[in-house]
């Protein structure tokens, strides 16, 4: 197909312009600011501070730890859910209904949903009350304001992204491939492991990347569910900008978070590519 050069300029230009205006320029400003000193000079002292202070390494570690747990849990819950919707729900109306149920929370403010978890997970919350009344525990569990509480709340918010991504890939796997596997002597479990799952990997990879990056940068949920007892990077950045008003240091934290996230993702993709080739 031949494209008129002018329409090509338009087609490419609009997104490029959008990206420049809303991402490159602001991020460039942030990056430049991170080298600014209170006295008006330029220095990498902020980076030195982060690199040498274990507190920031700890926050970075916690951020990635929570994001990894969230990704793992969302994958373990979301994949079977996507699989069930795709293969076991035959009724198209019911399937649409389930999709709506999954997507609806996205329309609700994450502040509201985080407060919902406060109510559910609290000492007198529904979870503890239920466990107590079943006599599974004798005193309330401390779930709120722990890493576990943050992970639970974030996993719930991230679930739709994984389900939708995986389901869209599963839907495109030709069912005759599964029949072929069964026909060639594969037990349903083997057919899943040898055919369905490998073919759904692009969805798993895309879904986990989306969930991981969103979790790394999440602010509202961790700050509400941590009760100030746990600090992730987004909370530190916010503190610097909104409370301490140390814009250069906030910028440095933001750049450090972005670079380390990109490094992790690049490593992840590299491993996958190696694996796919080998």
């Amino acid at each position, binding site marked *: 197909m031949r494209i008129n050069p002018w329409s090509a300029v338009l087609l490419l230009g609009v997104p490029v312009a959008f990206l420049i205006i809303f991402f490159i320029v602001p991020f460039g400003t942030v990056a430049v600011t991170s080298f600014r000193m209170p006295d008006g000079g330029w220095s990498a002292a902020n980076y030195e501070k982060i690199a040498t202070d274990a507190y920031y390494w700890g926050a970075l570690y916690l951020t990635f730890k929570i994001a990894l747990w969230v990704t793992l849990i969302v994958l373990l819950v979301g994949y079977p859910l996507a699989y069930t919707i795709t293969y076991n729900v035959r009724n198209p109306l019911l399937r649409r209904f389930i999709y709506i149920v999954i997507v609806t929370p996205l329309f609700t403010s994450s502040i509201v949903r985080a407060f919902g978890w406060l109510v559910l997970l609290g000492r007198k919350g529904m979870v503890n009350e239920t466990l107590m009344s079943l006599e599974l525990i004798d005193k309330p569990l401390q779930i709120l304001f722990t890493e576990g509480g943050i992970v639970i709340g974030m996993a719930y918010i991230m679930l739709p992204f994984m389900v939708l991504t995986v389901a869209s890939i599963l839907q495109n796997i030709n069912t005759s491939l599964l*029949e*072929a*596997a*069964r*026909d*060639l002597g*594969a037990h349903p479990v*083997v*057919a899943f492991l040898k055919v369905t799952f490998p*073919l759904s990997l692009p969805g798993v990879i895309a879904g986990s990347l989306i969930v991981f990056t969103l979790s790394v940068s999440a602010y509202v949920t961790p700050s509400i569910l941590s009760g100030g007892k746990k600090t992730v990077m987004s909370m530190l950045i916010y503190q610097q900008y909104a409370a301490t008003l140390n814009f250069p240091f906030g910028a440095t934290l933001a750049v450090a978070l972005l670079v380390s996230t990109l490094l992790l993702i690049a490593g992840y993709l590299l491993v996958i590519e190696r694996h796919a080739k080998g």
Partner: protein
Amino acid sequence: MAGDLIEIVGLVKRYGAVAALDGVSINVRQGEFLALLGPSGCGKTTLLRSIAGFVEPTEGQVRIGGKVINDVPPHERPVNTVFQNYALFPHMTVADNVAFGPRRKGTPKAEVAKQVADVLAMVGMDGYGERYPRQLSGGQQQRIALARAIVNQPQVLLLDEPLGALDLKLRKRMQVELKRLHGQLGITFIYVTHDQEEALAMADRIAVMNQGKIAQIGTGQDIYRAPNSRYVADFIGEANLIECTVKNGRLDLGGVTLPYDVAGAGARATLMIRPEDIHLGAPPSDGAPVVLKATVRDKVFLGSAWRVYAALPSVQEIAAHAASGDAVDHVAKGGAIELWWPRDRGRVLAQ
């Protein structure tokens, strides 16, 4: 008949109110090449899939080697399928695709490699083991799908329109190869197709299906020469279906009595004659041919023969397939001609 490899007894499959299979009974002999022939929606694929185990019959039984296999899951059935769209695993090489079945049986590695190499050679695809399906042409993919099925040495090979996606020339060549392979392997083939020529060219027996039922089953010649209904006559080959009335127990065509006894057939009957059985010109004196006068409506040159469309006394049209020769070369449009056919080539069909 006892001793047949596959016995299908009273098979019914209903989807809601619709019966995809409506009481199918059929026996297939060991080593036979059976074609299931019919238009789309006739139930042929449903029948094939119930033998493979992908369709659970509402009623009836599928037996293989005397054993009822209704409740045996697909992966434990002694059958393998060549799927319509090949269904090759896109994430596996050709060799891994073919090795999929043997590996499930726990065949030792070296043995698997040998089986794969042998079967790829058999379908003329040796040396393609390391390629991926997307790197192959449609015809090559077809061969791999075939190899992947026969490497398991199934008792029955099920083929679901395996040549449907290939161009005509390749299809003709694959027909010959499949037929040869069938002879070599001695495996029972059940072959679903909507292409009557393909069924005639390949199958030992053809089961013509219509609306979930078997309309007729027999050798290609049986079905072509002696169809038992208008439906079969029309579906297999070309047929002139001449509507006649019945007078005094004989066929009557616009006042001309035709020498076919139809006592008890009701007030109307259909006479079927294949175009190639109709001759133009003076009938021979022996053999009591059926002779009709007609008017030429059209004449089409086909190369080796002429196709002549002629109007009968009853205003119906009849097509004749006449080898080039004096009689037909000089027939003119609008001219009067005499048609005849050997009496036994006409068949009276029930309504």
